[in-house]
């Protein structure tokens, strides 16, 4: 099953998921539409809908075959109708929305060398001072494009060209929870200790994933994040991992 409606394309992903997709770009306008489509479909609370997973330019819906579709009509016909209808309804809904706001989080980061273990490396590679890297990293508001890899891992963009840098060729065996890193044009936060290849510039004292069912991930796709620099002392007093 696949189709196109206006700027949207949609297709089945295997036999129990469908994807709504826009142009494959890291673009905030596209991200915002994905975020709103997510909210729009989510609010319908349809039976048999198991998951809605937004990421960059796509929204994937995972469904339970027997509860979401009827057995009397071919699945492909039902899904094609469903997708076409969703897009029409969504575009009407979107036109009625005014002043759609995203949540902005101001996130503290300690960029001191004990945490910012790759600052020197970026400084050398990109011919820029460590102070400038920090200044540039904290100067922009970033959009959350995706959550994944690990529970709560937050992918944000777009970082300034002057501080963009490739992942390490060989990932570290362990990157500490809270580490803030850069990979290409993205910046991200490690939610837990894990292997990782991003270039680490600092650490946030915030716990961005909490297994408590009422908390879970701090951020969601479509949120905005701006970092601000704190000292090691402030880090210690704000540390949520204690």
């Amino acid at each position, binding site marked *: 099953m696949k189709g196109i409606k206006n700027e949207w394309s949609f297709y089945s992903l295997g036999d129990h998921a469908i994807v709504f997709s826009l142009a494959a770009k890291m673009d905030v306008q596209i991200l915002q539409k994905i975020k709103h489509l997510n909210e729009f479909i989510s609010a319908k609370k349809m039976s048999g809908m198991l998951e809605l997973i937004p*990421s960059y330019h796509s929204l994937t819906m995972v469904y339970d075959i027997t509860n979401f579709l009827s057995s009397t009509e071919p699945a492909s016909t039902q899904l094609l109708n469903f997708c076409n209808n969703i897009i029409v309804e969504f575009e009407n809904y979107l036109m009625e929305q005014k002043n759609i706001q995203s949540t902005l989080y101001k996130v503290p980061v300690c960029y001191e060398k004990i945490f910012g273990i790759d600052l020197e490396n970026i400084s050398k590679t990109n011919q820029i001072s460590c102070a400038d890297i920090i200044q540039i990293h904290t100067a922009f508001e970033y959009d959350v494009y995706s959550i994944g890899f*690990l529970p709560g891992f937050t992918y944000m963009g777009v970082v300034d060209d002057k501080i963009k840098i490739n992942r390490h060729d060989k990932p570290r065996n362990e990157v500490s929870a809270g580490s803030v890193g850069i990979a290409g044009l993205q910046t991200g936060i490690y939610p837990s200790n894990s292997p990782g290849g991003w270039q680490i510039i600092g650490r946030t004292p915030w716990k961005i994933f909490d297994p408590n069912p009422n908390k879970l991930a701090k951020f969601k796709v479509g949120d905005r994040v701006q970092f601000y620099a704190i000292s090691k002392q402030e880090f210690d007093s704000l540390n949520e991992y204690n």
Partner: protein
Amino acid sequence: MSIKILHKGIADSIQDSGRYGYQHFGVQPNGCMDNLSGTLANYILQNDLNSPVIELHFPSSKIQFLDDYIICISGANFVPVLNEKSIPFNTPILVHNNDMLSMLQPIDGSIAYIAVKGTYNEPNWLNSHAFNAKRFNNDDILNFVTLNHDLKLTLQQLIKDLDVSLIEQIQNNLFTNKEPIRFLPGPAWQDLNENSLHDILNKPFTISAQRNRMGYHLNGPKLSTSISKSYLSSAVTKGTLQLLPNGDMIVLMADHQTIGGYANLGQIILVDLPRFAQMKNGQPFKFRLTNLDTAQTLYRTMYAPFKH
């Protein structure tokens, strides 16, 4: 009043049907690798079909029962022995306090399941007892609480109710059926070059020794896309065929990450995933394209017997 892991296996754990609804937080679904066998074991015991089961890989954990229980072993034939005596699978079995269960050798399949009549008395997380990367350790205690009525009577009734033809049909599908593994094309399917399109549909593949609950790495012809292309990460599902930059494929399994940025060539259909999960290393198989309507009709047929 529990079940004890005397000696841990290589990758054994408690599983159920998994956890859905949290992938947007990056939380994996987890759950039984071969959900059909896990379901069958519970069905034979007339349990809730989502009840937690013990998933065993080989070499498997050695287990001691610290109470009397009715259990059922389904899935792979690892030659189960209770106190050194061979016991059948896919049937309810009465075990007694201090009995010891071990698995001798992998004859058919790769993953076995033990369902227990009663309740599993541990806290769940986000509605599931399947935890990512949590494996048994020596001396772990599994808090299964047995029935508090006559086990012998219950056993007789369960044996009387056994649906022998259903069990046989499922066993044949999982371990005798050598038909190709069917899949639906994914978003990067049309990016494969002509040779690769031919190879994936005609040449045999095998599952390599690099396999775990996250994914099965395949051996087979190297595949490549016609243009070098990078993909923005998007959601993946169990059964996703990911093409790695070196031309190998990985099939994502129950503990897969929620999103992936490799070329997504397709998804194995749900009805063929248990059979695929059970394949042994080195056993050759082929892939075949199918369509959505067929996949869903087959799925409804496969799970229909469990619905009443």
